[in-house]
């Protein structure tokens, strides 16, 4: 098992035996192991990272049930409240900064890379926390129709999103899509990086102790190839965020899109360098929103024009 960096020891002559961690998933605000009892051991430079849950179809379905149950009340919160809840995540991450850096190093990053990824991740949380109560004004409109109607368009969340997280940026990549998905009022089930799953689990622990309601974020660990047909076909999932080079891995994007067509899911494939500043933007929030347009007649007694 991978060794953690020990900065201080109490007694150099008698090094203590570290306590190893059992890694669990994060579903409905709880930390279950997989119901299937299966595990896998990702390795970095030949060393195993630990025994991680190999999520089953049943685990996936449980996570979707949790995400669906949480969705309406998450969307109904005021934008200001969602903003504060997201900001609280940044506070939690700041406190775990050291641990998050250590774990990225264990998963293969250099010290510099790890520190930079963690810092950018925290900045990104603050960035999207600020968007929660602003994107609606940027993207909404009052539409100047010719007839005497008041007509406006607003964004609403698409619903439950399944997110296949970045393989290579286990923390920054995951947050770079989870945050806009949450900001827009959706709930999410994430499949963590399969080769570097530790950061997603530590992030889950931060979320569990933050103000994010149970079920709003759910994190599974496991294999994309094993789960893709199940989430692509699940009718309670409304959209898929696939963070993969579009045509890699025997065209997993293709098979996901094919199956997703049965329920007309919105499938977004991303292949962005999340370290770049321009790849944080409110257009990612809009990707997981639907435009709703509302018409209402305007009384035509004292005026004769259409109104707006």
């Amino acid at each position, binding site marked *: 098992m991978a060794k953690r960096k020990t900065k201080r020891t109490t007694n150099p002559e008698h090094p203590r035996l570290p306590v190893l961690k059992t890694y669990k998933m994060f579903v409905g605000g709880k930390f279950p192991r997989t119901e299937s009892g299966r595990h896998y051991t990702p390795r970095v430079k030949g060393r195993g990272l630990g025994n991680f849950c190999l999520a089953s179809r049943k685990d996936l379905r449980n996570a979707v049930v949790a995400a669906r149950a949480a969705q309406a009340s998450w969307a109904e919160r005021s934008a200001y409240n969602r903003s504060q809840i997201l900001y609280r995540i940044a506070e939690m991450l700041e406190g775990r900064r050291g641990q998050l850096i250590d774990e990225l190093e264990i998963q293969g990053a250099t010290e510099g890379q790890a520190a930079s990824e963690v810092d950018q991740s925290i900045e990104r949380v603050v960035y999207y926390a600020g968007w929660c109560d602003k994107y609606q004004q*940027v993207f909404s*409109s009052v*539409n*100047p*129709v*010719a*007839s*005497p*109607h008041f*007509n406006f*368009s607003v964004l*609403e969340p698409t619903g439950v999103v399944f997110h296949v997280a970045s393989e290579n940026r286990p923390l920054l990549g995951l947050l770079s899509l989870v945050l806009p998905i949450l900001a827009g009022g959706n709930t999410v089930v994430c499949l963590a990086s399969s080769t570097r799953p530790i950061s997603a689990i530590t992030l889950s622990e931060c979320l569990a102790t933050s103000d994010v309601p149970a079920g709003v974020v759910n994190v599974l660990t496991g294999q994309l190839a094993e789960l893709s047909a199940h989430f692509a076909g699940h009718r309670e999932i*409304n959209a898929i965020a696939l963070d993969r080079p*579009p*045509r890699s891995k025997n*065209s997993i*994007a*293709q*098979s*996901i*899109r*094919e199956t*997703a*067509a*049965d*329920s*007309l899911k*919105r499938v977004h*494939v991303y292949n962005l360098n999340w370290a770049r500043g321009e790849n944080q*933007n409110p*257009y990612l929030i809009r990707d997981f929103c*639907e*435009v*709703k*347009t*509302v*018409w*209402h*007649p*305007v*009384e*035509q007694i004292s005026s004769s024009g259409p109104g707006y």
Partner: protein
Amino acid sequence: MSLANSNIETNLTMKPTLDPNWPSSPALESRDSVRLAKSYGLFVNGEFTPSSGNRKYWTINPANEQRLSRISESTAGDVDRAVQAARNCYEKQWSRLRPAERGKYLYRIARLIQERSREFAILETLDGGKPIRESREIDIPLAAAHFFYYAGWADKLPYAFPNRKPQPLGVAAQVIPWNFPLLMAAWKIAPALACGNTVVLKPAETTSLTALLLAEIIQQADLPPGAVNILTGHGPVGQALVEHPGVDKVAFTGSTRVGKSIQRALAATDRRCTLELGGKAAHLLFADAPIDQAVEGVVNGIYFNQGHVCCAGSRLLVEESVSDEVIEKLKQRMGTLRVGEPLDKNTDIGAIHSRQQWNTIQQYLESGQADGATMYQPDCPLPKSGFWSRPTLFTGVSQSNRISQEEIFGPVLAVQTFRTVAEAIGKANNTRYGLSAGVWTTKGSRVLNLAAQLKAGVIWANSYNQFDPASPFGGYGESGFGREGGLHGLSAYLTY
């Protein structure tokens, strides 16, 4: 906008005394201003050309089953040719044109449609069966308005997408349905051209005539050859077009079944796609609504264009305390609707679009009765030839009946009742579709609550079936994705 302008207060508390069999003098629109060719070719690279396969089929008038003209069936070679023409034009001319100039071409098209609107209206009614009043007052003016609206966007795109650099996608493949032939062509072509793309459009096989007249206008407007290409023919032509490797963008309006097959067919590509598909919209009618006005709106919502409307209000959820009154008034109002010759300016309900669609509607009428619902149709006379369906209302419908779950695409209304707001919302949202919904109440806070709770892309409150080029249109769930109209409609045709 069609049967009654919803902003005009109506007060039909008295029972209408109009006898449905009361004869009216025919007020037929003259066909004189329309000259139909014996047959039509394809419009490729700015010219009308025969299909390479030389196969033709008849397009008929559904009101009398008479043959109108022969339409060319495109081949795979024609699809190649059209996509190539669109590509050439995109690379050499259209994408290099100054945006303001692109806009001026679109303004020209808008004006030419207005100038020739009479021809367009008559052709639309002859070929599709819709009442001339609707073609003249809705389809054609709205089509012109779409070109006029998007013309102005051509040189203003950076203002629509802050902090981005919008760029055209390339060649857009567009496949449209038969229910609003010219209007759907305008919805597709106008934003595509405004954003700097070129177009290959396939109209529905049964309604090619106005698309081909539009091609003539595009020639008259002197657009660069290849900017717009129009391929006629049946489903396989559309399939070959959307799957053609030279296409950068697919836009489809039509059935959910075909929409899914397109999404599946494009799975191996990163081609952009927008789908505007079916619906099963519900009206929610509350006891505090102005009942007469609401009845007028419900009638407009389902019987407009024979119910051949993706956003047709095909379900009525009415609050139990007023359901008897509402159903009685609906029946009275249905009794005054005139079904018949679409070219007659008195006609409210025209011809069912095709024998195939007529068969589909009959199957649903049988299914509704077999499931135990009670069917009502007014006793109105129907013409001898052609395809006709009386306006139909089902009561005693349950949530699981096919007539309350599946899109019929005909003049058939399924009525259910509710007691609480929560029940109404639950029933309205109990559908895979999510295109539109109607709300009838005088309570402002309830309008705004329901507008937020109903899972649909368009909410018509105390109104129904309103359309405007500035207003985004499109659905949730299995009604498709992407929006047409307004600033939102631009993003389907841009990359950044």
